[in-house]
């Protein structure tokens, strides 16, 4: 029988607690403005899922009292920084954690203002699912479209439109169906596996965790049910094997040499015939060292180290894959680039490009067009990208990149650009293909 890393950990000595509950991890992003009730929604999820501790609730109660509005302001749970509390706005992505008996959740809570697109992109980059919040009285706004479009662009497979404040439209099913129809019609152009619409009231708690009697015309899942049942990206162990080498584990006295990295996709087995790029040399896997010890096979997203039959020159930046499953390769790539830098991009600007574990030099050669995300249309003729703009570009690199298209692999298909003068991360790119 094949021993897998997963099975070994579960069977580890004293791992009773971990084995008994074997919950999976779901990462999701939430987008929407303060007015849509996003902070209230997150507060409601944490509160009703009983993930809040008494002292945290007390803190919020005392802050709610000092503001004098009498009710428990769940939004106060999510404002982390002094300036945010003082100005009543959300500045930065915040990460929050909660669990139900079935799942562990990480929420990337992203601010909704247009100027904070970079935060949405950041939060969305690792998410399995996005919740876009709209106010039932307003329906889809420019901003909601923008959020859904970015979620689609970042390759999030599932988008949930949470139609909030249903209490303020008298729980009217027609209002919900109209907004949902709008959304589906527009979003069909996005490359998203699954769209869902859920009517809720975050303030009153309807259909967030508890099923709502006010919304009895709605037969679908509550928001939490949906979150508990959606597939997670941790199931990446299918597909071609990709192991970007981060580090070489050396113990000369043991003649040990392990090529360590986090599997970006696929499963590596002892006995696999592999190719090491960029050298193109081949060898055979003789051992797979997983966190739980030596195993016969380990799948993404585990961090592993593999040992090979031959002594090869394998350094950080190399990519190990199975023979016959090599990725694409090019010194010129077409990419969708979101500009994050404070200063706009320079025409033919030079940057450092970090892709998996290798960093190369890159020139921003051409900007084909910029994207008006809320309309899903293109605008040609841009010389540069300013902060929060998204463009379709061509980049030339000093060394070849070994990559997959972003739609096929979010790890081997993504990169960041770094400005060498300031060390700032100025761009986030998704590779559409080579040239």
């Amino acid at each position, binding site marked *: 029988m094949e021993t*897998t*890393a*997963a099975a070994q*950990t*579960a069977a*580890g*000595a*004293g*791992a*009773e*607690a971990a084995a008994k509950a074997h*919950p*999976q*991890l779901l990462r999701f992003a939430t987008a929407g403005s303060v007015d849509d009730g996003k902070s209230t929604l997150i507060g409601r999820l944490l509160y009703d899922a009983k993930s809040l*501790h*008494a*002292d*945290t609730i007390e803190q919020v109660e005392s802050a709610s009292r000092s503001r004098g509005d009498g009710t428990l302001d769940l939004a106060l749970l999510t404002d*982390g*920084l*002094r*300036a945010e509390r003082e100005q009543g706005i959300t*500045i*930065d992505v*915040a*990460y*929050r*954690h909660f*669990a139900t008996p079935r*799942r*562990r959740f990480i929420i990337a809570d992203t601010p909704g203002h247009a100027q904070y697109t*970079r935060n949405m*992109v*950041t939060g969305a980059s690792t998410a399995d699912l996005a919740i876009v919040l709209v106010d039932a009285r307003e329906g889809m706004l420019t901003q909601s479209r923008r959020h859904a479009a970015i979620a689609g662009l970042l390759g999030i497979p599932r988008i949930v439109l949470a139609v909030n404040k249903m209490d303020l439209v008298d729980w009217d099913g027609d209002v919900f169906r109209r907004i949902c129809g709008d959304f589906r019609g527009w979003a069909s152009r996005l490359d998203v596996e699954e769209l869902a619409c859920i009517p809720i009231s975050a303030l009153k708690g309807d259909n967030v965790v508890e099923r709502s009697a006010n919304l009895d015309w709605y037969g679908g899942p509550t928001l939490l049910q949906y979150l508990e049942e959606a597939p997670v990206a*941790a*199931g990446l*162990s*299918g597909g071609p094997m990709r192991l970007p080498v*981060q*580090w070489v*584990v*050396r*113990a000369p006295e043991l003649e040990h040499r392990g090529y360590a*990295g*986090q599997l970006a996709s696929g*499963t590596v087995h002892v006995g696999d015939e592999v190719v090491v790029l960029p050298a193109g040399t081949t060898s055979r896997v003789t051992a797979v060292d997983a*966190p739980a010890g030596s195993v016969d096979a380990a799948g993404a*997203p*585990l*961090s592993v180290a593999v040992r090979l039959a031959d002594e090869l020159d394998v350094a950080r930046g190399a990519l190990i894959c199975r023979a016959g499953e090599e990725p694409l390769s090019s010194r010129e790539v077409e990419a969708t680039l979101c500009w*994050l830098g404070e200063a706009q991009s320079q025409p033919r600007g030079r940057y450092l490009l*970090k892709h998996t*574990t290798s960093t190369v030099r890159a020139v921003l050669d051409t900007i084909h067009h910029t994207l008006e995300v809320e309309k899903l249309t293109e605008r040609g003729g841009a010389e540069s990208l300013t902060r929060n703009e998204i463009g379709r570009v061509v980049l030339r690199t000093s060394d070849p990149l070994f990559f997959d298209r972003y739609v096929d692999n979010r*790890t081997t298909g*993504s990169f*960041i650009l*770094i400005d060498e003068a300031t*060390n*700032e*991360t100025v761009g986030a790119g998704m590779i559409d293909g080579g040239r």
Partner: protein
Amino acid sequence: MLAVPSHLQVLEAEAIHVMREVAAELETPVLLFSGGKDSIVLLRLAEKAFRPGPFPFPVMHIDTGHNFPEAIEFRDRRVEELGERLIVASVQESIDKGRVREETGPRASRNRLQTVTLLDAIEAHGFDAAFGGARRDEERARAKERIFSFRDDFGQWDPRRQRAELWSLYNGRVRRGEHVRVFPISNWTELDVWEYILGEGLEVPPLYTAHEREVFERDGMLYAVSDFMERLEGEEPFTESVRYRTVGDMSCTGAVRSTAATLEAVVAEIAATRVTERGETRADDRVSEAAMEDRKREGYF
């Protein structure tokens, strides 16, 4: 295809990836180890990332001089077992050299002074990265902090100028004098940490399980009777069965009443608890709504 890994396996994989990135991309990292549960997990993750090779960094403790003796004993033993190098940076030395001034009075604490000792040690050793065991679920300013948290020449954290952090692509580039604080277990909760400790069979200092201790009560918290704390009038010592949820200074870490004598029992209690670890046992966070944010801006852990 293999079974979908558990949340702990995914969190572990992320943490190991982060540690290897730092080792590969920065010149002189250091791992901050206090003998507490979070940094105990960091040491285990470092073993998983780098064994059978040596750790590509030393281990450093900021010793306030007010630590629990059990934590110090454990620290020395654990680092020796691992065969790694331990650096101890001492707050007492900072005081003796006049770098900081000791607070006085019954509510004096060396908590804030640690920041100076830490920054001095980072500078003296030329460290450009420091691993810490902080988690985002601990406190709301931390919920906003990146895994790679950039610090300027003064060790300061500026929440409005954080680097964008996307996918698993970290930007740890620093200039001379700057450094990054790196938090590999950012996305873990207190319960995740305990389940991991149980699953891995890790040893923790005896402070974490229930034991009899001479304590006194102040502001609703139980403090150990020690040479480091003056008692106010009416603060009578008594013996109680207690355990600690966090291990900081004796002068600012409170104990909780408990009879949970095994780690399994501790985990069961924590899973059922209704109060956060910092709210229950850390006086240093009770100063104001933004106590942690302010200290972090100054260069605190």
